[in-house]
């Protein structure tokens, strides 16, 4: 059984259709990426999975259990965490307070401390800046903090929305290295990206999204070789 199964999801913002029958699966331990242009429906897909955008039609299951019956604030107890687009950190709180908010759903003190240490290991910079106000961090550091905060929920499945957005190339590379590292430690990752080159280089499999539909699905290696993908998303003629 797949860890996450999304079947034929239709979602709307008011009367505007955002998703038109998206289906995808994520197996335990994988990195799966959704690539596509602006407005294709990548973020909306993540929002339906995390409960922020209830779909009108379709089915989402996590290890066979229906996810749609849970509200957004309950999904976190199913150990699914999200790193929102544009990082969405609590800008006025300090780094430590942001991480504390990540552990809001938990009451196992030892586990929380363990995860905090793990976050500081992954992002030594966060440890240096424990007392700094998050809004004053650089873009890359904010991305680290948002990721660290999501890890504080101790997720099995991590949903990441455009982690490379607005970052310098050097930082993009280090963020993707971290993603691989988190995955190696046992967290399954569903990654939404516009930077298809980087996303496909770390992912196991990929889906191409266009106007709310999946138009292509294959292993990452095959997608990198696909002519349409090369032309449209990798910038290779």
């Amino acid at each position: 059984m797949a860890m996450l199964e999304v079947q034929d999801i239709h979602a709307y913002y008011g009367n505007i259709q955002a998703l038109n029958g998206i289906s995808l699966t994520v197996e335990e331990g994988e990195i799966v990426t959704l690539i596509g242009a602006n407005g294709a429906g990548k973020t909306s897909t993540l929002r339906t999975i995390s409960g922020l955008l209830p779909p009108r039609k379709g089915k989402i299951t996590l290890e066979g259990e229906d996810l749609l019956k849970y509200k957004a604030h309950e999904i976190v107890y199913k150990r699914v965490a999200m790193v929102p687009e544009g990082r969405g950190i609590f800008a006025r709180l300090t780094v430590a307070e942001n991480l504390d908010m990540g552990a809001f759903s938990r009451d196992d003190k030892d586990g929380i401390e363990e995860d905090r240490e793990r976050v500081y290991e992954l992002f030594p910079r966060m440890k240096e800046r424990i007392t700094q106000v998050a809004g004053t961090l650089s873009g890359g550091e904010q991305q680290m903090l948002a990721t660290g905060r999501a890890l504080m929920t101790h997720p099995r499945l991590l949903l990441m929305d455009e982690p490379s957005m607005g970052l310098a190339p050097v930082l993009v590379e280090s963020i993707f290295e971290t993603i691989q590292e988190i995955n190696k430690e046992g967290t399954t990752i569903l990654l939404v990206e516009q930077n298809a080159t980087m996303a496909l280089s770390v992912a196991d499999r990929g889906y191409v999204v266009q106007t709310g539909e999946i138009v292509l699905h294959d292993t990452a290696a095959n997608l990198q070789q696909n002519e349409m993908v090369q032309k449209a998303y990798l910038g290779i003629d």
Partner: protein
Amino acid sequence: MSETNNFDYRIPLQNGLIAGVVALSVSVIGMVTLLAQRYLIAGWLTLGQVILFMAPAAMSYLAAGKAPQNNRGIALIYGFLTGLISALPLVALILLNEVIDLRQFLPNVSPALIEILTFGRGTVAGSLFLIIVTSVLGLVAAGLYLLPDRIRRPIFSGLIWTFFFGMFSEILSDRLRTFFGTDFAKLIIESKALRPVVAVTIFIVTASLSVLWSRRGDKVKGRMAKMDTKSQNRMRYGLIIFGITLMLILPLLLGTYLSEVMNMILIFALMGFGLNIVVGFAGLLDLGYVAFFAIGAYTMGVLTSTGDLGVAGMSFWLAIPICVAVSMLGGLLLGMPVLRMRGDYLAIVTLGFGEIIRILVLSDLLKPYIGGAQGLLKINKPVIVGIPLIKPDQFYYVALAGCLIAAFISYRLSQARLGRQWMAIREDEDVAEAMGIRLVNTKLLAFAIGAAFAGLAGAIFASKLTSIFPHSFNLLISINVLCMIIVGGMGSLPGVILGALALVGLPELLREFAEFRLLMYGIVLIVMMLAKPEGLWPSAIRKRELHVHDNEDYEDYPEAMAPRAETRDPGLEGPSHL
């Protein structure tokens, strides 16, 4: 802007004209004439003159700041010219008034105003004198700007304190008479204003105190920080005990009139604590807050009135918990349908709710029960061990108790898990939800607790007045309370008290100028937002937000100052919802 070392005629011209137009405006709307009736320093200075010359002095000060650095001459010339130019619109008014009778268009351009503007010296000589006065004032203001900070600061605080004492000299005289006798009061105050000698003394004393604090203050603070936790705690408890004692004996010091003012301040502060939870902690903009105040007041009225409309004739103490519960219920009922909305939409809906309650109270439908426009009369006063608390200085303790309870609950909540949930929701609803916070429940709790405080305030208010009328519960109350917490500092508890003192206490003491109350309100708000947007006493978190880009935040992290390749702004923007 390019820094040149040259004289730029536009700066004094611009500043001077702005100052002149402001001075002209306060003159023709009648403010100067009305405020001139209150002397600050007997025979020397009236409040009207202060208002008139405030703008020229301030703009000259600013003009001096725009002069090229290290060029004191130009700064002084800027100040002088700004002052000079600022007098010209007033002089034009004086001369024009000679030619045609301006009173038919501008009813406030009275002989009294011209008398003030010309210092009673006739048209030509007076105009010249006015120009000289503003020019010298501009020069002095520019000079003040050039003084080093350690001299300027004491002068400012001396001026502010002297102004403060001068403004309230009538009340001061009343208090002095009560405690030290009429003779002593007459020594200090002459016909409701400070004697010049006293004014100078106050200036010197407060200025020297300011010097002393700037020299010794850091040392004292350092010594306090060095103390071990035990003696720090002892000091804190000492302060708390002192504060409580002061609050308990305050009515004895204040007398009847000031106690009455204090009661209004406390009732508004109580409402402020409630709205502070809704707006300051949880970030939900509620513009119909007065509705819960009204619900509390009318519940108290119906339950305890001994008049025709009273149903139960309950005692105050029995009715209080019911009032709180009913308003809380009102908060929940309103909250359930509207809390799914965000930001502006929530503000509009709550605004509507406030109006609905007011209109309901006025309506014929409810008239048989709550009296409509005729109001509800004969509401019970609280009674403690057989003593009815009728006089303001007795009733004070009821208002104080309500206020302290609200402050205590607010403080505990802000430190608790619920407080953190509110904080997260205020920062980013989506992320908060993704962290496992139940949005609707958390928001409803904020709404209900806020409503409960307003209901308590309403109940106390009704009992204080013993009669209530629909017009006491208009939109202005909501706005007033909101302004209070904005001026005090969003989410800050001491800020609520400061806001209530400034926006409820001051206007109450300056009742004779009530017609300009809203104007002053607007000006205060604009100036606050420009000069100190975080409020008078900001909460720690709010301070961070508005000074997030100040360099001081980086002091501990020198490497962070290095140029960065990536952008830094997205963190402060709202989340994108699509």
